[in-house]
Each structure stands twice: as structure tokens, then as C-alpha cells.
């Protein structure tokens, strides 16, 4: 059964509100235009004149798993869409209501329920941010190392729903490794606890199917995480984040690979900035404007741990960098740039027309998971795609590429190209050009044996068309799972081509 995209009538919304009042207080049900529009917006650029398509019919603010379950059961009864929203910082539209309905905003579920100092775990509501959580954990010398570029504003539940990637994941793992288990409301309103086995605080179980990963990274299409138990680490005593300059990309690329393959235990990540990124930073970033013109590529490496370990490992990495012709950029730029990487969403953005004039632009970040050996080929092909757009219009601006290690062996990299988009000028024709470019970018990733996304998800227009190609038989299995768990297609409908699960099953 599919949900028709037509919006609910006022009478129908009133009916749903009356039903919700049997499980929620009035102040937990939001129907004003402001409340609804505030929950339609996400960071990824979209044509301004079409924002109205993405406004929910109402929003709710539950405070418990039981309330979330009751809301989902009501949505099933009335056959209206439910869209979970945590921080709303995702770059693949997971939190965007494509067909109206109820947005379930989990921000009030932000409590710390249990801190287990013996087993080093914490159990929290899905609505807590990592920043606020770590402020509390620091009092006990502990740390939850899930570190997206939206660190101050993204929430634990959103990290579960989108399958988050962490800047320091090469040292500590990513969200899937750090979340031990969680309470989850299925699309039918049933409550399930999912982890390794049925464990609350178990990091490795061989009992039954490994269901935890199935309920992470689904972009809200398989339900809503409400409470999670997380793995904790000692708060690092020391941090080191050297930035090195190179006069060419090839040496910087070789250095990045060598750093990642060095086997240093405190290694938390290496980042390669290409020539386009350096050129972009040289326009506007106070740290890079004064850099000499022979700085054409950059490498950063990050280490966390006890000070003696960080110093020993750091010296090893400095020697590797030197062997590759690196020039250390200095303490101020190294420390300042790295600290700013935890909080990229607070950066005011602007781009340039081809004539050089400053224009207001939003940030679109296309990402993929790419093997080290394929990074130069992917980089070249992606820049060519954006250059083609740029030749046609000033709406798009190439802001360069980063590649970040995803693990501690250097096998694959979160590879991203940042594109400035002049949203005020993003008309239907320009949007179609962009969707085609996104499809082309995803095709390059697949042609290089990569995955369409390492981090954001792959359910936006353009890239999503190629998800069946990437997953093959696995995509058919996704459809089967979706139809089984969400028989009425109420959970975040319209995402990931999952409507196909219901074709012929009305």
C-alpha cells in the first residue's frame, strides 16, 4: 500500500491531532506554520521556491519511547507519514518530510539515563548531542568519541539513523562501532531492543542475526531510535594535529597513504586537501590567505591518547611527512584548523561568480567511500563534472576536495567534494543540472569500485538512482525488508526508492 503525495486536509489534520492528544500533552503537538517550517529545513541546498513541498502537517515532541511508539501506531491507523528528526544536520535529506505527515522531533529525549563507570558505558536519550554528553562525561574523565563535522548540533539518534562517520573514527571507530545497543520503535509501533544479540552492553555477540547494523543508517525508513547505550573511552590526555604543505598533489597523496599505513596506535585520521581546496581556502580563510603560492596541497594528521604515546607516534609521523617533502605549516594553523573541523556548520559561506564577485552560497557536500588507489582518478573525474557545471552557470562553485581516512589501515577514504550552490538562483533548470551532476558523481564512485556514500547516505535525488546498481540483489532484499517491517509505508516514505517495495502489493 502506498501513501498518496497529496497533502492532508485541515479536517484530517484535526482528526490526527485529536488522536495524538490521547497520548501527548497539547504543548507536545505543534501545528503552527513556524513550528512546521522550522522542521522542514536541512543544510543540503534545495530550490527555495520548492521548500513548501517539504513542510510537515504537524510536529510532535515526545519524551519517551512509549510516546514515540504510540505516535507511530496512530500514524499507522490514519495511514499518514512519520518522519523522525534529530539534529536535522544530515546532508542526504533523511529528516526531510517528502510527503508531509508527522515529524517526530526527539530533542526532548535528551537525558542521560545511566552512567556505568565499571563497564564504561552510558545510556542516553536519542535527543542528546555529543557535545553536551561529553561535557558531562568529562567530569568523570570519560569521552564518547563520535565526532562529525556537525559535532555541536547533531544528536545521537540521528547518528544512528544515518550511520554516522566520525572525523576521529580511524582511532575510535564510527557510530556503528560506538553504539552498543538501542531501543527502537518499529514502523508498526512495536518497541524492540537491538544490539549485538539482545545485549544492552555487549560489544560482540554471535547469537542470532546481526540486526544492529540493519537498524542503523536507514535514514528513518525503518523506525526511530529512542534510547542508546554507548561505549566510552578515557578522555584523551593529549592531542596532536600537524598540518603539512606540499607544492604538488602527488607528494601529498603519497604522504597521506604512508601516514595511514604506518600503524601508529594513536592515529585518529589523515586528511588530504587537494589543489582546488587550497585555492578555495586561499580566497577566504584567514589561515590560508597569507600562505606562499607554492602551497598547492595539504595533509593533516591527528592523534589522540596519552601524552607519551602521542609524542612517540607524532614523531614517527613527522619523520614520514619529512620523507615525502612536507613542510610543517606551524602550530597556530595546525591547531586552529583542526579545532574548527569539529564545527563546520557554523561557517558563513559564500562563493564567487566567474567574474570574481562574492555571492551568497550554501554548501553541498558530495561524498563517497573510495579505496586509496582510486583517489586520484575519482578526484580528476569529479572536478571535471563540476567544471562543466561552472562553464554553464554561476550557480555552482567548486570548493575543492578532502579525503579522510575511514580506518586505521588506509584501505578506504571518505572522499568528498564541496560545491557552493547559489540557492537564490537555483531554478528548476539549474536543479536538474545539479541532479544530473550528482548522478554522474555517484557513477564515477561505482566505476572505481567505491560506494556512493561513506558518510551522508545516498538517498538524495540523482545519486539514489544508482543505489540499485550498487547493491544489486541486496537492493531487492531492502525492498522485501521494508515491506515486511512497514506494511503501510508510513515510515519516511519516498526515500531510497523504497516505494518500489509496494508496487503490485496494494
Amino acid at each position, binding site marked *: 500500500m502506498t501513501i498518496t503525495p497529496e497533502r492532508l486536509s485541515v479536517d484530517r489534520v484535526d482528526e490526527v491531532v485529536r488522536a495524538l492528544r490521547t497520548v501527548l500533552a497539547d504543548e507536545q503537538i505543534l501545528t503552527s506554520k513556524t513550528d512546521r517550517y522550522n522542521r522542514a529545513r536541512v543544510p543540503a541546498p534545495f530550490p527555495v521556491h520548492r521548500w513548501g513541498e517539504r513542510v510537515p502537517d504537524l510536529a510532535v515532541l515526545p519524551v519517551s519511547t512509549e510516546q514515540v511508539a504510540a505516535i507511530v501506531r496512530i500514524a499507522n491507523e490514519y495511514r499518514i507519514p512519520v518522519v523522525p528528526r534529530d539534529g536535522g544536520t544530515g546532508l542526504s535529506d533523511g529528516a526531510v518530510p517528502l510527503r508531509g505527515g508527522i515529524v517526530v522531533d526527539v530533542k526532548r529525549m535528551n537525558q542521560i539515563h545511566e552512567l556505568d563507570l565499571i563497564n564504561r558505558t552510558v545510556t542516553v536519550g536519542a535527543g542528546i548531542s555529543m*557535545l553536551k554528553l*561529553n*561535557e558531562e562525561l*568529562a567530569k568523570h574523565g570519560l*569521552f564518547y568519541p563520535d*565526532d562529525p563535522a556537525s559535532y555541536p548540533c547533531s544528536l545521537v539518534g540521528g547518528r544512528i539513523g544515518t550511520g554516522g562517520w566520525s572525523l576521529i573514527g580511524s582511532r575510535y571507530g564510527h557510530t556503528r562501532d560506538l553504539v552498543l545497543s538501542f531501543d527502537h520503535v518499529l514502523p508498526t509501533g512495536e518497541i524492540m531492543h537491538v544490539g549485538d544479540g539482545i545485549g544492552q552492553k555487549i560489544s560482540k555477540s554471535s547469537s542470532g542475526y546481526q540486526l544492529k547494523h540493519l537498524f542503523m543508517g536507514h535514514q528513518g525508513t525503518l523506525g526511530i531510535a529512542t534510547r542508546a547505550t554507548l561505549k566510552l573511552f578515557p*578522555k*584523551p*590526555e*593529549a*592531542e*596532536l*594535529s*600537524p598540518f603539512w604543505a606540499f607544492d604538488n598533489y602527488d607528494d601529498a597523496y603519497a604522504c597521506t597513504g604512508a601516514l595511514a599505513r604506518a600503524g601508529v596506535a594513536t592515529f585518529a585520521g589523515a586528511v588530504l586537501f587537494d589543489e582546488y581546496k587550497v585555492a578555495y581556502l*586561499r*580566497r*577566504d580563510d*584567514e589561515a590560508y*590567505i*597569507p600562505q606562499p603560492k607554492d602551497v598547492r596541497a595539504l595533509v593533516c594528521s591527528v592523534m*589522540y591518547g596519552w*601524552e607519551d604515546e*602521542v*609524542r612517540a607516534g*607524532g*614523531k614517527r609521523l*613527522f*619523520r614520514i611527512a*619529512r620523507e615525502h617533502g612536507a613542510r*610543517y605549516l*606551524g*602550530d597556530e594553523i*595546525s*591547531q*586552529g584548523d583542526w*579545532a*574548527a573541523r*569539529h*564545527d563546520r556548520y557554523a561557517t558563513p559561506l*559564500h562563493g*564567487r*561568480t566567474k567574474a*570574481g*564577485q*562574492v*555571492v*551568497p552560497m550554501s554548501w553541498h557536500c558530495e561524498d563517497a567511500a573510495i579505496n586509496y588507489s582510486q583517489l586520484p582518478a575519482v578526484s580528476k573525474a569529479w572536478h571535471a563534472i563540476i567544471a562543466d557545471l561552472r562553464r554553464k552557470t554561476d550557480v555552482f562553485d567548486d570548493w575543492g576536495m578532502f579525503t579522510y581516512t575511514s580506518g586505521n589501515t588506509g584501505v578506504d577514504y571518505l572522499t568528498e567534494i564541496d560545491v557552493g550552490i547559489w540557492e537564490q538562483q537555483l531554478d528548476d533548470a539549474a536543479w536538474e543540472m545539479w541532479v544530473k551532476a550528482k548522478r554522474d558523481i555517484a557513477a564515477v564512485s561505482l566505476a572505481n569500485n567505491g560506494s556512493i556514500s561513506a558518510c551522508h547516505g545516498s538517498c538524495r535525488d540523482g545519486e539514489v538512482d544508482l543505489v540499485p546498481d550498487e547493491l544489486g540483489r541486496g537492493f531487492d532484499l531492502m525492498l522485501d525488508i521494508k515491506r515486511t517491517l512497514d506494511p503501510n509505508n508510513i515510515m519516511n516514505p519516498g526515500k531510497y526508492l523504497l516505494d518500489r517495495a509496494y508496487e503490485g502489493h496494494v
Partner: protein
Amino acid sequence: MATSETGKVGYRRAEQYTPPAPERASDVAITTFEHVWEVDPRLMQTWVLQQEFPNWDTLRIMNSRHDHLEWMHKHFADKVVTGSELLAEIEAEDSV
């Protein structure tokens, strides 16, 4: 806030809206105060116009950014090891 010639604390608008003379930092950027870079005003004439900022606000933004970065470091680790220290140690070891 500034102290006037009479010794009273006062606000001199002209003083606050007169930053140091700009110096060219690159083809597309200028500097005013030390460590304060701005986009070349010639590039902000059509779509985004430059805003008038009082000097105190310019300096506040610059200093608060440093505060923010310092706070972020402390959030993630108790101490920051500097690359220059390690580089000096390596060079000393290699010279032995």
C-alpha cells in the same frame, strides 16, 4: 568604548568606524588589524555588499574565535602537543 580627551569614557563613532588603513594580502584579500583579513572590497560590489563594522566588533569576533578554538581543544583533550616541539626534538636527535 573609548576615553575622550576630557577623560570621560565615551563613544566616538568616527573613531570606531575608521579601521587601520588596508594593506593588500593577496589578489583577493586585504588586511586591516593584525590577523584580520577581509575580502577585497572590489569583489563585494554587486551581489553581497560589505557591511560597516565598528572596530570593537571586528576585534571581538576575531578574539572570540580564538576563545572558541581554545575551548574546542579542551573539549577533546586535556593538552595540545605542538608540532614545533616534536620537530625540534627530531632535528636534535638527527644532529647527534
